[in-house]
């Protein structure tokens, strides 16, 4: 294979080696210095992010971030993208995305207990690409279900959105979280000169060769030819690998372990050596292979799934082998830890690669790519003239839309109750998983909003962090730490790089403010097809802590309860309506700016919300997000209880009902005075909107009825929206 390294990087390779690289070495550099593995375009900006608070035990740079949750228990979590593979082969691409992030969690010693997915596609009713988009969505969902269900980890939430910019570039971001005790944490370090390096798990084949390098390129007309770059997943093998690894870790004979994910054997060997400041020497003849005649290049760069590399204490190999034998898995000593600080690869004794570890793993060229231009956007600033003819029809249109409709069709394919920890599964503001060993539960929320971030990458990113934290607060959880997945276009274009930089700065500001440090994450660049970039789409995963108990959920539970809006009706204007779901689904356009965020006010609303929920005052609780107040209210009616409400606002009805101003949470309660008292203590607005009632949702303003609709009708369009889009009736 020809070198894909640019000339300056090629020169650096020669300088490091002080000679011409071999073909295998060239392949190794190419993949380790790919954008995917080296973060070469983003690293200098990522370094500005907050990564510490007292709970953070392990920050970025490891396989996953780890935080302390008390009682000697820790959780590991991270998000990863599998965008490119999922476009080329949706089922396997998504499945191996789940597999990869699960290995990141259990390679650290944690047992995975939850998965969430943020997935984005082109519109299902797109005139040109609709059929392909439907096929991709179906395949991605089946792939996630296949892998997670068989592995036995509950898929407890996520988000699904549709925009034309994802037509040729769907996004599949998978978040996983695991739990362990403090003394069960393992690192990917090859310590102890003379210790054996052991390969465990599936045999190596030719699949996925150069996958990480592929993920660092744009798509062209030739992308179909990249199908062999996509790996094939075997969740059963992964389940065995999980159990065997955790059991082997308990023997005490393992000193370091790392999964073979992107860049396979190459990445695991040089990173483990680099972290420990040691060397690793392996001979490929010992690597279990499922194909014959593989070249050193192919073995080193294969991304075959369900494999791990571990370093054991010398003399205790048999303890490790016994565990893997029990689980019916291959385990073979392939090499040894050395004091050379080099990665030396032999093929039947003959040296095929001899590279200094640190230079390879940690000293990839870093770029400060030009970004001193305005972030790319073509949307106008001024709002078009708009006036609603029928607010009820607008609401129904929005509820049936891809972004806002119920995603039940998707999440019912995921086993979300396995492991009997799911207190709140998909469909809520945040998922909640209890930790059986303590009385602490973990709440988690995934959020992205390409629309907002396209209009203003910095403010859009801050808004979605605020939203994640608000989602957690709505179930009573305190946000404590975050992981991020940055999905952007080609960073070599300054106006795209500017989006990335602005967005990262937004993450820094908001995560500092909400004290949710970034403990790790993933950057996916070059999300472009035929020169068309996706909208800037950072996806945040934020976790929160709460005391274990019955969850407070979205739907109204009883008639006669007071419906209250913590944070107040909020404000907006025509310009700030441009990124809303109203603009998208009713007016079918985009303009202006995302909603305005006052972080200080937002934080007070969140604190008040947590207090209300934790005091047991809220029978139901729901964050006001995409679609605004009217959509949030309609979602509160999902159990069949409606409400009669009055929205007092100086805004005209379209804005009052559908603006997406942040810092608002809906609760229903029997104790409105107590809620008001808490709101007052935190100096936030709190409005009594009205009272819950049977079967009807009626929203008035001070002079007239704006919307009056049977709850049954709301439910029908909301629940059947996705199926309608997936199975269009051809006339």
């Amino acid at each position, binding site marked *: 294979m020809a070198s894909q390294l640019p000339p300056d990087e090629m020169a650096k390779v020669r300088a490091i080696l002080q000679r011409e690289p071999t073909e295998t070495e060239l392949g190794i550099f190419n993949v380790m210095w790919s954008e995917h593995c080296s973060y070469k375009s983003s690293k200098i900006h990522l370094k500005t992010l907050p990564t510490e608070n007292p709970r953070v035990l392990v920050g970025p740079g490891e396989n996953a971030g780890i935080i302390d949750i008390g009682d000697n228990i820790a959780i590991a979590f991270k998000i990863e993208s599998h965008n490119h593979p999922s476009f080329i082969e949706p089922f396997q691409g998504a499945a191996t995305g789940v597999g990869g992030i699960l290995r990141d969690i259990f390679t650290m010693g944690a047992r995975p207990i939850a998965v969430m997915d943020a997935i984005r596609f082109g519109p299902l009713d797109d005139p040109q690409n609709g059929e392909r988009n439907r096929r991709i969505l179906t395949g991605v969902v089946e792939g996630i279900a296949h892998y997670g269900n068989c592995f036995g980890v509950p898929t407890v939430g996520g988000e699904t959105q549709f925009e034309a910019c994802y037509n040729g570039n769907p996004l599949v971001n998978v978040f996983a979280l695991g739990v362990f005790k403090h003394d069960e944490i393992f690192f990917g370090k090859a310590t102890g000169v003379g210790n054996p390096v052991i390969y465990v798990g599936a045999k190596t084949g030719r699949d996925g060769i150069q996958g990480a390098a592929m993920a660092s390129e744009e798509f062209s007309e030739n992308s179909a030819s990249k199908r062999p770059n996509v790996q094939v997943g075997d969740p059963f093998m992964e*389940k065995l690998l999980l159990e065997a690894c955790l059991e082997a870790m308990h023997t005490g004979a393992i000193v370091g372990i790392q999964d073979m994910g992107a860049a396979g054997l190459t990445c695991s060997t040089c990173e483990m050596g680099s972290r420990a400041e040691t060397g690793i020497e392996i001979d490929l003849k010992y690597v279990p292979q499922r194909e014959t005649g593989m070249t050193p290049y192919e073995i080193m760069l294969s991304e075959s799934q369900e494999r791990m590399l571990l370093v054991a204490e010398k003399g205790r190999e048999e303890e490790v082998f016994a565990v893997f034998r029990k689980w019916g898995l291959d385990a073979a000593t392939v090499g040894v830890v050395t004091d050379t600080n080099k990665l030396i690869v032999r093929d039947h004794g003959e040296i095929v690669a001899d590279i200094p570890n640190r230079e390879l793993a940690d000293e990839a060229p870093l770029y400060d790519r030009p970004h001193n231009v305005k972030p790319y956007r073509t949307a106008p600033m001024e709002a078009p003239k708009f006036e609603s003819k029928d607010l009820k029809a607008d609401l129904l249109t929005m509820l049936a839309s891809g972004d806002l409709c119920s995603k039940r069709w998707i999440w019912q394919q995921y*086993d979300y109750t396995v492991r*009997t920890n799911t207190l709140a599964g998909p469909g809520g503001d945040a998922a909640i998983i209890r930790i059986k060993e303590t009385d602490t539960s973990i709440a988690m929320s995934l959020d992205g909003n390409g629309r907002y971030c396209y209009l203003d990458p910095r403010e859009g990113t801050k808004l979605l962090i605020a939203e994640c934290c608000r989602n957690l607060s709505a179930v009573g959880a305190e946000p404590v730490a975050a992981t991020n997945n940055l999905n952007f276009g080609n960073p070599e274009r300054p106006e795209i790089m500017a989006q990335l930089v602005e967005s990262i700065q937004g993450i820094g500001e908001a995560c500092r403010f909400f004290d949710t440090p970034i403990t790790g994450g993933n950057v996916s660049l070059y999300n472009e097809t035929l020169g068309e970039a996706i909208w800037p789409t950072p996806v945040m995963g934020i976790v929160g802590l709460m005391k274990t108990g019955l969850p407070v959920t979205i739907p109204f539970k009883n008639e006669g309860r007071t419906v209250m809006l913590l944070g107040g009706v909020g404000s907006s204007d025509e310009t700030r309506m441009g990124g809303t779901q109203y603009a998208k689904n009713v007016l079918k356009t985009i303009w202006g700016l995302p909603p305005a965020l006052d972080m200080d006010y937002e934080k007070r609303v969140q604190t008040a919300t947590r207090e209300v929920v934790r005091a047991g005052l809220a029978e139901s609780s729901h964050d006001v997000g995409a679609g605004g107040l009217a959509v949030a209210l309609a979602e509160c009616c999902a159990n069949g209880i409606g409400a009669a409400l009055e929205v007092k606002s100086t805004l005209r009805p379209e804005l009052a009902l559908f603006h997406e101003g942040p810092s608002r949470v809906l609760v229903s309660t029997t104790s409105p005075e107590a809620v008001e008292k808490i709101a007052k203590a935190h100096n936030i607005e709190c409005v009594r909107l009205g009272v819950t009632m049977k079967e009807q949702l009626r929203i008035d303003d001070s002079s007239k009825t704006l919307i009056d609709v049977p709850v049954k009708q709301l439910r029908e369009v909301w629940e059947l929206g996705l199926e309608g889009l997936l199975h269009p009736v051809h006339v």
Partner: protein
Amino acid sequence: MRFGVVVFPGSNCDHDAWYAFSQNLGHSAEFIWHDSHSVGDVDAVILPGGFSYGDYLRCGAIAKFSPVMGAVRKFADQGGLVLGICNGFQILVECGFLPGALIRNRDLRFVCRDVTLRIETTNSPFTCAATKGQLIRVPVAHGEGCYFADDKILDQLEAEDRVIVRYMDNPNGSLRDIAGICNEQRNVMGMMPHPERAADELLGSTEGRVILESMVASLVTKAGK
């Protein structure tokens, strides 16, 4: 009482069953590894949910040949209680403990949701603590849970009062809404829904406990005789 939970490679509800019997119900529960030739000293055996041996061929088709299933057969032949949940039901059918087959769900998709079951008979050690016609809400989570058999078998199951639970809102197309059945001797039951996932108040339903508690009650009665 002592409950033995069989662990196949690929079982993933083994811990859930263990937790329900030991922590939610307060009995003793232990794991039985798939290559054991004995189930050990237990009062009842649970075949848990999951994907035994990956289930790439046909659900339960490989588990049928595992050493532990020989031991389970011996245990069942001696009158021991065996409950197969989800993949456990599929294994019991593959092994011929129970008639019929479990095929892909009607709409060819995995389905995870709560369903309502009706207890069809209390004449079984798995429902003796319930009342006939009692409705219980428990989760299902399976891709191949559509119960299928010919009319003769279905008629026979009904005639012999061996349909133990039926779906009120059939999630998978099972014939005659069958969710769980027992063998002729009534000591072996298979069901697709997960009663062990509805045994803890925090999880929103404890209505699955009646199945687990019936097993305990019948074991207590048996021990008293």
